């Protein structure tokens, strides 16, 4: 296990870097690293949980030589678990010696330094700073959605995304529906006018919720009482600064589809939400349901529901109404004068496809900037929704994006103060619509 060394702010050149004078000159203008079809791309994984390991596995399954060379995680057991799973699946493409495994809050900097392509898959609260650092170090990037959890975070990501463009870095975002053949085909038809102007939209992520990791469980793992920071990091889904609430962490997928269909992001939102059943001692501070109306620049509105309550009506889907028909986007069906339904080939696994596309762009040096194109905006859309439900007031896009409310801790460290802390009964302050200042 590596103890951390200072990270060079300038790139060290890698052996596969093209060495002709023209390319060297180009590289000095735009420090993005170009790999030809036959060059081995070195990958670093930042955040080694199930999804991070899955993303690394997909990156390691792309065409052309690739190698996982470094890993970073806040928790050593997560890192080891991810390493073992990846090694079992891709023995010859995983080459991470002990000194390239980094643990702790600044582990990411060191892992990023060793790679050509970095995968950012920690809890989303860390994404802005990790993305910023990866851009600073001039790396190509695959970043999981959401790319931030608040206004300052999205602003940081947007700035870094501009910088990435200037450096000609390729950036993919884990909104895999954008790479899913049936979605691409359906939305192309909508853009081609299959149902005319789209005047009303609906989308849902109503399901039963996700895992809970209890303080007791962590205490047993550690053999002592965890610090508050350890606990929040362990049970990260339930804390806004780490997760953004489920409207940001999950529902972003559906909101992104609507933004994609509309080729725009909302300008305003109103919403309501709360926690009806999510009241356990390890349920932190997030809501279990949100309902938001978003207004788009053309005046059309999106109603969006997301819920984490078992035993209710469930749906994860997107639907749009046009003047000439309607479309069940997620079911790939159009009703109306241009009636259509997808039959047959559903295409490749979109999680694999998104990596295939990113790595092809890296190897062929084609423009690729998903964060700047839509990743940051769809994240902001979801954050706007949360601001509307937490505060209960009308929130404009600009107010939300320019919000000074920074959820991130002032200092990182296992003993550092967390942005929110439990009271004597282990309960956290919960947003109260009408009272809470949410942006």
């Amino acid at each position: 296990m590596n103890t951390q060394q200072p990270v060079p702010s300038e790139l060290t050149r890698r052996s596969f870097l093209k060495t002709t004078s023209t390319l060297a000159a180009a590289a000095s203008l735009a420090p993005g690293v170009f790999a030809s079809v036959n060059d081995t791309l070195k990958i670093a994984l930042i955040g080694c949980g199930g999804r991070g390991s899955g993303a690394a596995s997909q990156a390691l399954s792309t065409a052309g030589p690739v190698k996982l060379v470094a890993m970073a995680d806040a928790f050593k057991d997560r890192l080891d678990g991810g390493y073992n799973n990846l090694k079992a699946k891709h023995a010859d493409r995983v080459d991470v010696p002990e000194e390239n495994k980094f643990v702790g809050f600044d582990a990411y900097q060191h892992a990023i330094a060793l790679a050509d392509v970095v995968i950012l898959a920690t809890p989303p609260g860390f994404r802005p700073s990790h993305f910023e650092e990866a851009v600073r170090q001039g790396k190509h990037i695959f970043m999981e959605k959401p790319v931030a959890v608040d206004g300052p975070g999205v602003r940081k990501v947007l700035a870094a995304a501009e910088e990435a463009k200037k450096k000609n870095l390729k950036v993919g975002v884990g909104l895999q529906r954008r790479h899913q053949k049936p979605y691409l085909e359906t939305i192309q038809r909508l853009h081609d006018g299959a149902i005319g102007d789209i005047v009303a939209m609906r989308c849902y992520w109503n399901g039963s919720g996700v895992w809970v990791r209890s303080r007791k469980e962590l205490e047993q793992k550690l053999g002592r009482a965890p610090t508050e920071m350890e606990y929040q990091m362990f049970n990260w889904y339930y804390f806004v600064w780490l997760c953004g609430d489920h409207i940001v962490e999950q529902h972003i997928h559906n909101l992104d589809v609507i933004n994609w269909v509309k080729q725009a992001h909302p300008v305003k939102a109103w919403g309501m939400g709360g926690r009806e059943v999510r009241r356990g001692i390890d349920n932190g501070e997030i809501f279990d349901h949100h309902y938001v109306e978003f207004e788009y620049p053309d005046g059309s509105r999106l109603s969006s529901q997301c819920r984490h309550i078992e035993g209710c009506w469930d749906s994860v889907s997107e639907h749009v109404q046009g003047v000439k028909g309607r479309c069940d986007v997620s079911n790939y069906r159009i009703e109306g004068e241009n009636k259509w339904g997808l039959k047959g080939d559903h295409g490749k696994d979109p999680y694999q496809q998104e990596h295939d596309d990113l790595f092809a762009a890296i190897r062929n040096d084609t423009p690729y900037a998903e964060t700047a194109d839509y990743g940051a905006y769809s994240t902001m859309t979801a954050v706007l929704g949360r601001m509307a439900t937490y505060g209960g007031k009308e929130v404009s896009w600009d107010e939300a994006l320019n919000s000074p409310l920074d959820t991130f801790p002032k200092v990182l460290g296992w003993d550092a103060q967390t942005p929110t802390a439990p009271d004597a009964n282990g309960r956290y302050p919960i947003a109260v619509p009408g009272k809470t200042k949410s942006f």
Partner: protein
Amino acid sequence: MSLLKCCLLGAFASGFVFAGGAAAKPVDFVTDVKPIFELNCLTCHNPQHAQDNGKYRLDTKEEAFKPHKKDQRIVPGHPEESEVYALTVLPLTDENHMPPAKLKKAPLTKEQSETLRQWIAEGAAWPEGVTLKVVMKVDFARDVEPLLERGGPLSDPARETLRLWLAQGANWPAEVSFPSAKAAAGAPSVPAGPVDFARDVEPIFARGAPLSEQARATLSHWVEQGAVWPAEVKLGPAKGGAQAREMDLVEQIHRDIVAASKERAEADMKPYTNTIPGTEVTYAMLPIPGGEFLMGSPAAEAKRNEDEGPQHRVKIEPFWMEQCVVTWNEYELFMYPEDKAPAPADGTTNYTSATADAVTRPTKPYVEMSFGMGKDGYPAISMTQHAASIYCQWLSAKTGHFYRLPTEAEWEYACRAGATTAYFFGDDPAQLGQYAWFGDNSDYKYQKVGRKKPNPWGLYDILGNVDEWTLDQYDPNYYKQLTGTVTEPWNKSTKPYPQVVRGGSWQDDPDKLRAACRRGSSSDWKMQDPQLPKSIWFMTDAQFLGFRIIRPLKVPAAEEMFKYWHSGVEKE
């Protein structure tokens, strides 16, 4: 329950320690002898299993004293002539020793044998009306430790287990402890009034072995007062090999099933509707008569595939089959154990059973698993074969019936219901719409179960709607390897893919719904699972796949149950 309560209270009132029952005072049948029989003898010498065990039953007085050939098993006043005692003191190497060492049964302790001797010597009094039943022998590691580890409000069966454990001596191995800050404080004295969990009980569990008399008394008061266990309190992590623990669990479920099963012969088999305990959810089971049939399709069948032949004769034992495929109503009870039926705050009633609770459950899916196609009354879908099998184990533990997936042969036999044609109603796909949901009439999604006509044996949606899991590994050449009439063929799995699914689905063309049509599962069916490792519970891309359960008339041995429920090949 009241019997157990009496037993327990009696035990503490008299300072009785189970293993030390031999005493100078007269032996009492109910408190001294009955527990020995129930724990050590009844597992074999019960009405269901007596046939294989010397035709001797020890559950009623009449049976116990019935002469056998020339011998009496119990000769009042003459222990040496009574096999019930004499066989327990034979050398362990003697093949007639009871309980049989070859079945890995522990011998009776000297004190237990002495109790039996004394009881017979004193005249072998067996009060009228006292009947014996199989009582679980509580094993700390298997039965008690998981309860303590899990913590939370204890179910009735869990409390019963604790009662039995206390009654049986509350053995706590010295090496097992649950480290906790509270341990240091030690257990206070036995509370006179209401037991407080945090003050009185938790320190005892925290300290672990061995339990003092005082600690046992405290625990017994606590159990009597409802064994309230605050939901957030959990003790140590699980210990021991997962496989061994799982086998122990299966053995426990097996014992419960053996004790509960009533039907002996095919004539006893009736259709029944069962309510899943503690819920309002029901499922209906239909008897499928045993018999022989010709499996596979004839070479001349339209749209037939090569893997459907050659046709071969198969003999099938009788079983019940679920009338409809398992719905979300049923399956979600298994998916979401805690939340569906929260235990009342006082911990007094709870629908769960200790064994069903101990069955592993699926991890929470990240995506919404009905994919918007509806839940109430609709087929459960997108589960792995492993998940479907563990559902069967869970339901078995809950109900005391042995449920499992059908083999491929059992499925085709039940589907055909005697027919030799492509479909159970004939060969004409034009009629299919009366019986099945498939590509042409399903409106791109699955439909509520039981809305089309059933097959001649009453099974709904056996064709179409959703494909159904079977137990077999898919091998296109499997039928070629079978000769003569095969009884209950089962091509056991050795690898994760492909496994056989049958019946066709809402997505399919009519030829895929033919009774003989076979399909193998594929790793593509987990394609959209973004995690590494991928889930062993969900097949995110198999939105056309469900299952229905069967219950064989003959209850198999625990080892076989284990094999039916744990193929061991569910991995990526």
